[in-house]
């Protein structure tokens, strides 16, 4: 993978100056490269990884497995396009295996998500069935461990004694 993308993927807040130093290039060329990636659509946005459980008690999310009937010519794209329009939907993936689409949904409560699935998702014409799995605890998100006590540095100084 491109080193620049790898660095940004881990921490999008690194400055162009810092990135240039790490990649042994100029600030200007980092700026140009990022602009090019944005233009080509390689970089699609910059996110913040938030531990919502800490920031806001009213937060729930679920992974929903969907079985759908693909459309002639358009396959799964049509239904996927339809589902990703909902703002409750955080991500949509086409999967191999026992079901077709995996949909991650966020809401204020499990109740709200359950209603969303019942009223909006399962009523879509090509959706054959849904299985809703509520997320109980998020341990790691986007490569980041959310509860810091899980990532304590256990290394000790061997120079101590």
């Amino acid at each position, binding site marked *: 993978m491109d080193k620049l993308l790898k*660095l940004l993927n881990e921490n999008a807040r690194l400055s162009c100056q810092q990135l240039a130093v790490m990649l042994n290039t100029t600030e200007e060329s980092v700026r140009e490269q990022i602009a090019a990636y944005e233009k080509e659509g390689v970089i699609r946005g910059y996110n913040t990884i938030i531990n919502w459980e800490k920031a806001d008690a009213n937060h729930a999310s679920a992974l929903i497995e969907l079985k759908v009937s693909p459309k002639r010519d358009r396959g799964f794209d049509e239904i996927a396009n339809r589902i990703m329009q909902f703002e409750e939907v955080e991500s949509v993936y086409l999967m191999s295996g026992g079901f077709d689409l995996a949909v991650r949904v966020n809401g204020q409560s499990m109740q709200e998500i359950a209603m969303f699935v019942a009223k909006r998702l399962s009523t879509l014409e090509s959706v054959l069935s849904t299985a809703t799995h509520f997320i109980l605890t998020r341990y790691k998100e986007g490569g980041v461990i959310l509860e810091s006590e899980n990532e304590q540095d256990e290394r000790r100084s061997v*120079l*101590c004694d």
Partner: protein
Amino acid sequence: MIDYRSVMNREILSVPPSGIRKFFDIANEMDNVISLSIGEPDFTTPWHVREEGVRSLEDGKTWYSPNRGFSELRQEIARWFRRKYKVEYHPDSQVLVTVGGSEAIDACLRTMLNPGDEVLIPQPSFVCYVPLTQMAGGVPVILETKAENEFRLTAEELEEKITPKTKMLILPFPNNPTGAVMRRQHLEEIAKVVQKHDLFVLSDEIYGELTYGETSHVSFAAIDGMKERTIVVNGFSKTFAMTGWRLGYALGSKEIIGQMTKLHQYAIMSAPTTAQYAAIEALRNGDSDIENMREQYDMRRCLLVDSLNKMGLTCFRPEGAFYVFPCIKSTGLSSEEFCEKLIYAERVAVVPGNAFGACGEGFVRVSYSYSIRHITEALSRIEHFLKTL
């Protein structure tokens, strides 16, 4: 009441306790400390390597290994050294598997030294060489490397300290704590002096796979005429992020390795069996792990060197290990004052340079075996600290 000090060995009693103990006690008691002080990889051992260790346990391989280490491992070590550094060792007679590089250093000194033999030790360097030399009956003679030479050892510095009693030279490169690397031409200069004065060399190459830049590490044993008078110490701790497995090795002439093996067999018996199975896998299939880790270290190194220099803590661009060694003299503080103030004011821990020898005074060791996120946070705290001085 027993007066214990009157009965114990005078040499070990005379070894001073580490001066920075107090400093680490402070760091350990504080909350929210951002440390750049640790001298081991932040990576865990690659999974496929750990898996081989686990598999050996599942298979019930819990017995002693042969004293020298498993033959399969010794063959892999010999193969690795040929492949990486172009030096040939016979796996049956010229390789000894030890409990970390540390045991290899100790065994080498105890095997080579007679009472009164002088051992030349470049400093700043890792803390074990002086006490282990003393315990082996040798006399440590310090060679002070200098910032203006990027902490390399020069032939002149070496020649100056040679006496008729000089037996050995220790070559701790790539260097902890300075990050200094001796390239081929530098080693060739040293080799001439070694040859001329009939010295032996303990080349501690534990950081050998962690060098940055165009050319890779050159083993001192690869320099013309040096193999027969060099004992190479290396290991798995830094190369494969395997510190806790405690596995290293020594390479050298059949005669020296033979005597070291005798010592090892009585003092240690054999190196950990589980670790040896894991190490075989590491040597066979670990090249891409090293490459990944080195790439990470390299980016962090560039970031640290650039940032520290911009803050006025000047440091050369170290080419090896995972440390930078900035000069803090511009602050008017001593190394220990600097570190103590920094930890109280900003809760950032770095190691005073004088922990690695008196000539490390005026410097601090900053480790980059930390994530970039961690390093950038520590750097912004250090920057703030410097503004408040």
